[in-house]
């Protein structure tokens, strides 16, 4: 099962490597990872998506919590939270018809044209992980020349 972890860690060199090292040493895959400062610049927030059964993830959470400079770990899965990911896609649109159909998709979904090129466009989209997967699937037939995903960021709806 997919789990989204929110990790608050002291913003110091080497701390991310410690967190990531716990996963690699145990053979757990990290599906996505984002890191940035919080309101308090001495603390960073890491959003990490991993998968595993509940017992495995409970053990990961405990191990991460054990790290000396990790302040707090929350498994947001199952808690009320808001999760988003941004995707940039370079789509081929060689002729006018293809171009129009891509634009149609853009307007139907919550996307934005970031840049128009002679034979295609770069699309910027934000949404849930599953929505982004659907979007990629729909654009696939046009020919995707490049894609990058930020990985999920997630925010608990409960006050900290």
């Amino acid at each position, binding site marked *: 099962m997919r789990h989204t972890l929110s990790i608050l*860690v002291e913003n110091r*060199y*080497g701390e991310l490597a*410690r967190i990531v*090292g716990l996963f690699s040493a145990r053979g757990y895959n990290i599906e996505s990872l984002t890191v940035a400062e919080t309101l308090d610049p001495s603390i960073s927030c890491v959003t990490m998506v991993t998968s595993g059964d509940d017992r495995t993830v409970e053990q990961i959470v*405990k191990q991460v919590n*054990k790290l000396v*400079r990790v*302040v707090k770990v929350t498994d947001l899965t199952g808690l009320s939270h808001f999760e988003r990911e941004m995707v940039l896609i370079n789509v081929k649109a060689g002729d006018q018809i293809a171009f129009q159909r891509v634009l149609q998709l853009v307007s139907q979904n919550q996307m934005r044209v970031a840049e128009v090129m002679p034979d295609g466009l770069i699309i910027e989209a934000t949404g849930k992980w599953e929505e982004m997967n659907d979007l990629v699937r729909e654009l696939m037939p046009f020919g995707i020349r490049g894609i990058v995903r930020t990985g999920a960021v997630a925010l608990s709806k409960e006050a900290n």
Partner: protein
Amino acid sequence: MPSTAIEDRCPMPDTDGATAQMMRGARILLESLIREGVDTIFGYPGGAVLHIYDELAKAAPRLRHILARHEQGAVHMAEGYSKASGRVGVVLVTSGPGATNAITGIANAYMDSTPLVVITGQVPSKMIGTDAFQEVDTIGITRPCTKYNYMVRTVNELAEIVHEAFYLARSGRPGPVVIDIPKDVTADQALLADPVEVRLPGYQPGVTVDPQQIVRAIAKLLAARRPVLYVGGGIIHAGASEELFALAEKLHLPVTPTLMGLGCFPSGHPLSLGMLGMHGTYWANMAISAADLILAIGVRFDDRVTGALEKFARQAEVIHVDVDPSSISKNVHAHCAIIGDAKSVLQRMLAALDEHSVPSPSRLDAWWEQIDGWKLKAPLTYERSRTVIKPQQLCEELHRLTRGEAIIATDVGQHQMWLAQYYGFRGPRQSLTSGGLGAMGYGFPAALGAQIAFPDRQVIAFVGDGGFQMTAQELATAVQYRTNTKIVVMNNNSLGMVRQWQEIFYQRNYSHVDMEWSPDFVKLAHAYGAVGLRVTHPAELTTVLEKGLATPGVVVMDVVVETEENVYPMVPPGAGLGEMVLG
């Protein structure tokens, strides 16, 4: 007896008015160590730590340096020193190979929760990342086997890091902390700042014990019909032996220690079942398998203890007390979890028990009868011989001659298991062994470190002929510092435990387990300036051991024992604790 408690913070002695003086980083380091109460460092010099050694020569007699003959030996010495005394062990090594040679010891300390501060030299800051001479990414290499590690970037943060490192090493679940110091930092000048309060918002080792869980645990303990106390190294770290003793006696509970817990409860006591696990006693393992309640304190349900997990204590509710929340329900589900150090939890349990009338021991009569039945069915036993010394006999003889009061360090393997079965440790901090990592070569330097902590106590390295050869070079250290360390080599001319597994599980296809050529250990002892003795006949065993133990200085006793002797009873791999092979 040594002090058994690890203080949360160390007192900060005066530093001869060293504060508010400009001094170079190397001196700041040493003054910071002295502030933490350090008087002994185990180490080995090299290029990146030249400034530190320059200062170290001037720091005597406030700091004593023990020159090992290999960095692995230095770390194991610091481990033995720490395990025997309860103090933080301190190691100083150079960059590159100095650091990599220290890794086995650091990993060993991490697995067995031994508080160490290991200082490693590093190439100058400007050269880091250039593949400089003797450069290695010490921080990267030690990250998975330390509780924490630091790279010191400027001389100004050095004192604070040292203070924090000691706090981390000894608080909560203890462990090794590495401080990697680039050479230029040890040359730069700064003021020796006053230590500041450690501020680690995410690290709370002194959690308050949940009183409701204590009430629940007591209710379960009083209601249990087949209870067992399963106790380990956490009792020793917390100095909780007295409390454990009080609880066991009050409720008449059977107690079984792990390998790391040997001595935390006196082995000869009628409530002691002896060690549990792969080579534990039959009755301890049967008791765990049939228990309806297991009170597990300061243990981690290691695979060598539990056997096959799906067959482990299927009828039991588990109360798990541990200072490390990540140990709870890691391998075995805990029905009741109590986070806290063994001493505070046991004190609270005893206080809570005061509110109940003491239950009659007779409530457990049927349970004790069952346990005694198992004990009668399969006592620890071996066949004696008139012609060859049996290793078990050697362990019993050592016990008799030292009254179970010696500090004994072992490596890993058959000799380690026989000693655990037959020595009978009287108290905590007497058994020093490589439990989690299972490192050959640990025993002798660990014994040496313990001897340096307690020059007047009987300290014995009990090692095999294989393990001894991994760190035998420390004989030079033992003799140089005029220690009284005794080395008993249980010499079966083979890598016994591997040989045993090849015999039982690989149809006697003995593959590279014969030590076809070993040095003459008596002559080896002489070469190092130590005394060497050999005994091959059972009739002479007592005389030689008595002589060896009584001879001042370093003595190597080469005890030639039966080669084809196996450690029994045994839980075969994949089997449950209740499925022991008796031999």
